[in-house]
């Protein structure tokens, strides 16, 4: 696809509609691309009913993606909430594939329940890497499920985290409610607001800055985002952070 990690595509099912979906795989893995789709609306419900060999329409890639040049030689702190792991996975895979270009890698991953964890095989792989630290939490854990991670919201993982704030860039993707609290924790750890990047979910209809649905103040999320630094977002009145 020749995309940048963090970009998105518009996926079409003709007769149903089109929806913006983050690309969940790294461009460093040639030959295919992957999308992680949660069933929440008409288009995604229909996507979940597709069979192998069915046809979909894809436009893109759109958006800016993660700022790769600013991330070189930096320690990377990935903070993923739920389905937010999908867009981050494109960057995690990229960093793992080009390991020498980046410093330490930390992944904080929070879900509602252990069964909701995505990409379990890949999580195992990341857990076992000596140069990668994975910390996990769930909001609640059924009694009959074995769980070695933390029970609590994702911010409860931050006290275990040992980072050098001057070398670290945080990449945060999750539900809007998570952002405010995670940003506060990142700032508490001493990470500069120019080094905290978030990806915003908006209703990108056209992906080309025409339809107006994803506009926040004077920026279009589909063109100027979906990845913004907290420094950029804090200047925009109309965001959740």
């Amino acid at each position, binding site marked *: 696809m020749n995309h940048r990690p963090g970009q998105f595509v518009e996926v079409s099912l003709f007769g149903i509609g089109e929806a913006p979906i983050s690309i969940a795989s790294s461009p460093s893995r040639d030959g295919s691309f992957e999308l992680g789709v949660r069933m929440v609306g008409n288009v995604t419900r229909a996507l979940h009913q597709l069979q192998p060999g069915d046809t979909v329409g894809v436009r893109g890639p759109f958006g800016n993606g993660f700022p790769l040049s600013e991330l070189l030689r930096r320690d990377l702190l990935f903070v993923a909430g739920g389905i937010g792991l999908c867009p981050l996975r494109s960057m995690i895979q990229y960093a793992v594939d080009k390991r020498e270009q980046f410093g330490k890698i930390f992944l904080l991953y929070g879900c509602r329940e252990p069964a909701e964890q995505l990409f379990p095989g890949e999580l195992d792989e990341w857990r076992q890497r000596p140069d990668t630290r994975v910390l996990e939490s769930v909001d609640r854990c059924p009694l009959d499920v074995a769980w070695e991670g933390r029970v609590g919201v994702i911010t409860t993982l931050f006290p275990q985290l040992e980072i050098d704030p001057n070398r670290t860039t945080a990449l945060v993707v999750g539900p809007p409610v998570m952002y405010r609290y995670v940003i506060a924790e990142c700032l508490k750890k001493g990470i500069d607001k120019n080094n905290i990047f978030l990806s915003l979910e908006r*209703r990108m209809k056209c992906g080309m800055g025409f339809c107006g649905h994803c506009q926040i103040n004077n920026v279009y999320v589909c063109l100027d985002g979906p990845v913004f630094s907290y420094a950029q977002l804090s200047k925009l009145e109309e965001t959740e952070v």
Partner: protein
Amino acid sequence: MEKIDTPIFIASKTEFRTSVENIIQENEVHGVKRKTPGFTFDRLFAAEELCLDYDITVLPPSKYLLPTPESLLKFSSAPKLRVRSGAEVKPSIILGIHPYDLHALKLLDAVFIGDLVDVNYRARRSATAIIGVDCLNPWPYSFAASMGTALPPAIFDIWLTDLGDEYLIEVDSGRGDGLVKRYLKTRSASEIQIKQRAKLREDSLSRYQLSLNVSPREITELLDKTWNSPLWEELGQKCFSCGSCTMVCPTCVCFDVRDKMELNRKEGERYRHWDSCMFEGFAKVASGETACTERASICSSAGENWVVSVVDDVCMPAWLILPAQYTSITVWPRRLNSGRQYRTSKLPLSAHAGGTYPSRTSLSKRKTVTTPIKGW
């Protein structure tokens, strides 16, 4: 569009009417018609339907360049998926556009034929000839003169000025030249007639009863600084989120995209239709979260988003008078002839350039809000 040296012609009104009749016979012409109450752009079938001494139309002519609904692509799923895109565009003429609407069109051009191109818009734009006319008797609630939008930008094919018994005709493109040569019996305008146009335009500027004493650029800053003003709360309480202000605005472009299937479930169409940032679900994502929930927030963002993003270099969306009306600082009527200024806080302005006339009674009963804006 091929530009030519702007020759200026004269045609009598009788000659002009005959020409319009001929143009209508051979072309798809959309012109201004009288529609009680007010005026509207509609397909012309006879020259006598055309009304060029109107003040304002209900909907702006941009409806022909951004029609609603508009087909984006057609598809058939059986026996194999086939998708066909592209607008079905027919050459047409818009006759009677006013300067402020042409300024709005310039803004649409900046949006849709900029770094990224909307192919449907570009196709319609290049297939549409623009014949405009000077607005010599402005709408009583217009403030176009103070916004610099009372005279036309040079993006027309033909421009008309009503000199009384004749039309002064300025041609500004090869297409306009072709139309004049084919349909109009003209003679070159004299120096005196050209001066007469200048005088008429100058007089028309003094006929605008209302003005905003801020420049478009200042309004950008004004909106930026007043994001947290309680005025938006007050406005939000009165707003029904009906979206009418954005539907009649010649500069609003927001659209939604939908699919529809034929009853055979094999063929369908993807189309776009006008949408509005004033609608409650406009920014709602599939998971149910929305960036804009409060009406006050919708009102303020609707104003701010559009202005800050594209207006800087082009012009001012007329409906932004809405926030201005609720400040105590900006809205003044001007009686230029007498040189005196009257405060108009008791005369709220209509919210847009394409609306209907508010009745005097309803205006006088309306509460005037004069909360000062902090820092302004």
